[in-house]
Each structure stands twice: as structure tokens, then as C-alpha cells.
């Protein structure tokens, strides 16, 4: 093998090698085709006074004999709030039920934002208020991208909203 000087300036052959490294990775491991769409949806937020909630766990399991549908359980975490969500199909085959819990429990306003087919950047949102025990339910949710936002009082609780990264439901 020829000895190559690492301290030499980058030359044109180095650039061609890097271009090939790039081409090979772009071919072998390209970003998912919907990644740009997902990111652009995620960051189309009215209010940037947010805390970002990280996806902690995302598991899919068979619901068992009594309930034929699959259950998906997703947990998001920030230092101040944990959001646990289960997603099931029903009552009809083409809609989902999203049931969640906030910990610590609080009757906060919960928003589920989805892309708007008519093209509004803000998407369209469903709102519910969590019960005192932190439980909330969205029924009749169409499959697709969805992002949860928990709205709270910015004066007392830190940033005015806790935002999750979008899930593909």
C-alpha cells in the first residue's frame, strides 16, 4: 500500500473520493422520503415558547385474545412531564383511539395536531382537557402524522407548551 501523507493539503483526488463516499451512502442509506415533510410539520408551531419532549419508548404489542387489534404504547419525557399514550384501532378499521396520561397528573389542555389536507401550514388540531388524574382521550383519529402539545400556564410552569416529535400513527 502506498504511503499517503495525512498532512498534505486536500487535493482533487481527495475530493473525488469524498464525493464517492457521499454517493455510496446516499445510495445505500438515504434519508426516509418523508423526513423533510415530517420535520417541516413538526416545526410549524404557532408558539415557540416550548419544551421539547423526547420519545422515550415506542412499543407495539398484540392486545391478546379478547381484543384483536394491535396496541402501540408510546412514552415521551421531559424533566417536568411524562406523557404516556396508547394507540388502538377502532371503533372502525380506519380510525384510531389515542388514550393518554400525564404525569404528574394535571387537568391540562392537550392538543393533537395533524397535517391539514387543504394545505394550511398549521395543520388542524383536536383539543381535549385532561381529567384531574391526568387521563385524556382522542377518538376517531385518522392514521397519519400527529404531534401532541400539552398547554400549560407559562407563568407558573415554565415554557407554555410541551411539544412531542410527530408520530406516524
Amino acid at each position: 500500500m502506498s504511503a499517503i501523507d495525512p498532512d498534505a493539503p486536500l487535493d482533487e483526488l481527495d475530493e473525488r473520493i469524498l464525493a464517492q463516499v457521499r454517493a455510496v451512502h446516499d445510495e445505500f442509506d438515504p434519508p426516509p422520503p418523508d423526513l423533510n415533510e415530517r420535520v417541516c410539520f413538526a416545526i410549524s408551531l404557532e408558539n415557540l415558547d416550548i419544551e421539547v419532549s423526547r420519545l422515550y419508548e415506542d412499543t407495539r404489542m398484540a392486545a391478546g385474545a379478547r381484543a384483536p387489534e394491535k396496541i402501540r404504547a408510546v412514552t415521551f419525557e421531559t424533566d417536568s412531564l411524562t406523557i404516556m399514550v396508547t394507540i388502538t384501532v377502532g371503533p372502525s378499521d380506519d380510525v384510531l383511539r389515542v388514550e393518554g396520561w400525564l404525569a404528574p397528573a394535571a387537568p391540562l389542555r392537550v392538543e393533537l395536531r395533524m397535517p391539514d389536507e387543504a394545505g394550511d401550514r398549521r395543520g388542524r388540531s383536536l383539543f381535549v382537557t385532561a381529567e384531574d388524574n391526568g387521563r385524556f382521550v382522542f377518538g376517531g383519529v385518522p392514521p397519519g402524522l400527529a404531534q401532541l402539545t400539552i398547554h400549560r400556564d407559562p407563568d407558573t410552569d415554565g415554557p407554555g407548551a410541551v411539544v412531542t416529535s410527530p408520530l406516524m400513527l
Partner: protein
Amino acid sequence: MNAEPAPGADIRAQRTARLAACLARAADGELGALDEVVAELNPLLWHVARSQGLGDEDAADVVQTTWLELVRQVHTIRSPLALTGWLVSATKREAWRVNARRRKQIGPGVDVLADSPDAAAGPAEQVLTNERDRTLWRHFAQLNERCRVLLRVVAQVGRPDYTEIADALDMPRGSIGPTRGRCLAKLRGLLLSDPAWSTE
């Protein structure tokens, strides 16, 4: 030393001005201001996340989380010149969190990087149709992990950004740019000594 402006300096200045305008519009609350920046930088961030050993779903989530953190902090980012480096560092940090969490969930003693996308050359050999590309992949796979991360990520950006990106990946000074650095020298030596790899 080279006193002339590097080739592409004008293009870079224009790009910086364009990024500055996008960031300012985003900080003003304009929805969609960052769309073109996202389209431009997403492939880079994807390769950062994947080079840290994340699977598809985790990598996509880490990239989304990184952009959310950017919009949260968009008021604090003073220089668009630093934007790319900021995003690369943030993606690496988010990927590190996910890997740490996975290790905790799986339990100690399990190497989460064992399934890393570039650890096995096998599938790539089937995906890549061109003999020259397969040859490059074979030699690339022999580099150590640090070099694979560096070259994979740096290859996504233009030459003026090499040093900034290497810094953002916490690579030592001189890893790449303005000099070739050890990783690229190693790969170049392997390729030049293989008759199956031609320089065209």
C-alpha cells in the same frame, strides 16, 4: 499558505446570507421559513444520526427532535455560519441520549452498536450495483469507527465546512481540512493500492 479566497467563497457567503434571512423569519414566527434549510440539511443530519448507530425510526425521531430544539432556541443562534455545526452537534447529542437509553433498556453488556448500519458490509454489496462503488465500500468498512463517522458526515458538506463539521463531531483538530488528515489518507492509500478501484 493560500491567500486567495477559497473557491466557492462567494457561494458560501450567499448561502450564509440566505440562512440568516431564513433564521430571522423563523425567529419572527413565520411558519415555513425553515423549509428550504430543512431540505438542504436533513440528509447531513440523517447521516450524523445513522453514523451514531441508530436504526431508521430512532434516527428519524432524533432528526425531528433536533429541529424542534432549533426552533425553540432560534432566538439564541446569532450566526448562521454556526448553524450547520450547531445542528450537527445537537443531532449527535440527541443520538447519544437515545443510545444511552437503549443500553439502559436492553441491559448492560449488550453492544448497541453491533447492528449499526455500517458495521456489516454484506447488504451494501448487494445494493451497490457498480463495481467501483462496491470496492470503495469494502475499503471504507475497514476503517475504524471514528474514521467512518468523520468521512461519512464530512462527505455531505462542502469543503469550506469540513473543519466546522469535524469540530461539531468532537474530532481532533486537523482530522480533515485544510489538510487531508489520517482517515482520508488511510482510505486513499487502500483505494490506490486496489486495482479494482480506478480513478476514472
